[in-house]
């Protein structure tokens, strides 16, 4: 099963690369686009999390090693150390995800307050602080 996967991987290497990186970068760009053009605060927050998602996906992506297994020495894999994918990015992405979650939560609470005060969620109407 592992071997078949490796063959497939080798055959469609470029496409897979394109798939993974393209998806990630695409997500980032979509997120940025939402942040930069959408007027609704909630949509902007959503854009933020899409952007983060893209980065997280990149993290996981670069961690992958051809034909690697999950970095867990569960029974049967005691000495598969050389066939395992890079564990560090996974650990990092865990942290990154949690932080992203926290940021999103704070952002949403801020949105709630802004809406309460301004009775609108349009970012270009919330400009009481300027110059």
């Amino acid at each position, binding site marked *: 099963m592992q071997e078949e996967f490796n063959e497939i991987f080798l055959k469609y290497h470029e496409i897979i690369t394109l798939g993974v990186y393209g998806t990630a970068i695409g997500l980032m760009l979509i997120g940025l686009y939402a942040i930069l053009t959408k007027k609704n605060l909630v949509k902007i927050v959503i854009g933020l999390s899409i952007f983060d998602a893209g980065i997280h996906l990149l993290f996981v992506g670069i961690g992958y090693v051809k034909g690697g297994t999950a970095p867990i020495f569960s029974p049967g894999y005691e000495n598969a150390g050389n066939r395992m994918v890079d564990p560090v990015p996974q650990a990092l992405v865990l942290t990154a995800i949690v932080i992203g979650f926290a940021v999103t939560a704070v*952002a949403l609470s801020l949105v709630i307050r802004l809406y309460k005060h301004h009775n609108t969620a349009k970012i270009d109407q919330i400009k009481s*602080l300027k110059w």
Partner: protein
Amino acid sequence: MVITPIHYIIVPLIAAFAIPLISKIHKELYRIVPGIVMFYNIIISFVLMKEVNEVGYISEIIAGWEAPWGINLIITPFSGFLVSLISVLGFLIWLYQYRFKKVIDVGEIKSYGIMQMLMITGAIGIIITGDIFNLFVFMEIVAITAVSLTSFYRGRDGAEAGFKYLLIGSFASAMVLLAILILYTQVGTLNMAEISERMHLVPQGIKATILILFIVGFGIEAELFPLNGWAPDAYSQAPGPTSAAFAGIVVKAGIYGLIRIIFTLFDIDGAFDFLIIAGLVTMIIAEFSAVKQTNLKRMLAYSSIGQMGLVLIAFGIGTKEAVFAALFLMFNHAIIKSLLFMTGSILMYNSKDKTILSIHGIAKKLPYVSILFAIGSFAIVGLPPFSGFWSKLYILTAAANKEMILLIIAILAVSIVEIVYYFRVVSKLYFAEDTEHIEIFKPSINSLIAMGVLAITIIVIGVYPDLITGYLHNAADMLLDKTSYIKFVLNNNVQIQ
């Protein structure tokens, strides 16, 4: 039990986690405990500073894994200096805000102390950590606390400022994260020393990209133009002590990040010229915009941005004395701007419409605050015999030694602008007819003590700068030679017994 850098982190955390519990015992505890922690920070800092000046470096490794593998905390004279500065400021800010009378209705006062304390902890963490991802984590701690503190007042504008800060701040974290990601794929490690050791392996294009991402990321924290749109709002809307903490502590951490990246990690020379240009633009635009402000704290915010630009210029010159001057300027800016924010926020409380215009002749009602503010503004525009003068002098000398006459002229022209808007305020404070005020909010004695300590420091350093120049020279030298840093971290990282 031996005092080690980790205390900077665990003690505040214990306090933070424990405060919700112990504040059930007595209501005052949630105000007092942070103060105790800050004071303990000062003790740590002094012990460590002493040690650093003997040893040169202090490193502590976490979880017993040696440098490249585990996370390690490193204290160089540079970071040690910054950390002690931050700790002292933190304690003073706590002293200033302790028993802060509620003038505007605020959020849960219980959480204020915690967040303030953890923001300072995060800043310290940024400075002392030796691992780049860990730096990112601490940056996030700072960001989240800063945002929630910015929107602490329950007025309408707090939330707005907070949201802007969060929006831009999340950009910063994303950029840094991306940079770390690319960096990891290239060098396969997260330890800063090892990264800078292997940096020469990275191809030029990718290196430049990483550097750019880092610059944008930390530039947002360091209030680089045009990344500083959040700063004026955040400074002006945050509670007074928090604004002081922003100017004195958070920005320093951001600058530290930028400098650490450019000086230690990368070996790109063009970065220095970039620093000069960026700093110049930042300074000019910020100082210009400050002139016509009506909100005092907003004006101070712009001026603080301008000072940061000056710091970047000084770092960009890159010689030993320039770095020394930059450190001196950071020190000055930390104390002076904190003083200004402390006094300025009290003045703002007492102005009817929160503008400079309505604090005419308030000096009669608030003599001490006004004179402290005057001292602060004299110092920040660099008039002798206050400490601001020396840093400006050293920067100019450093620039002159590299024959950068135009740079000198630009800096001085900008300081004339600075004089204009600061002295406008001072003359309004003192020499305008006394308009009747809403009930005067007088600062409590501990706030006065905190501000007085800062003012006295300003004057003493101004009269006798040799008190700290020694430390600063040492720090500058250590910052500039990174080979010894790498060697120390990677080879002989002995634990402190």
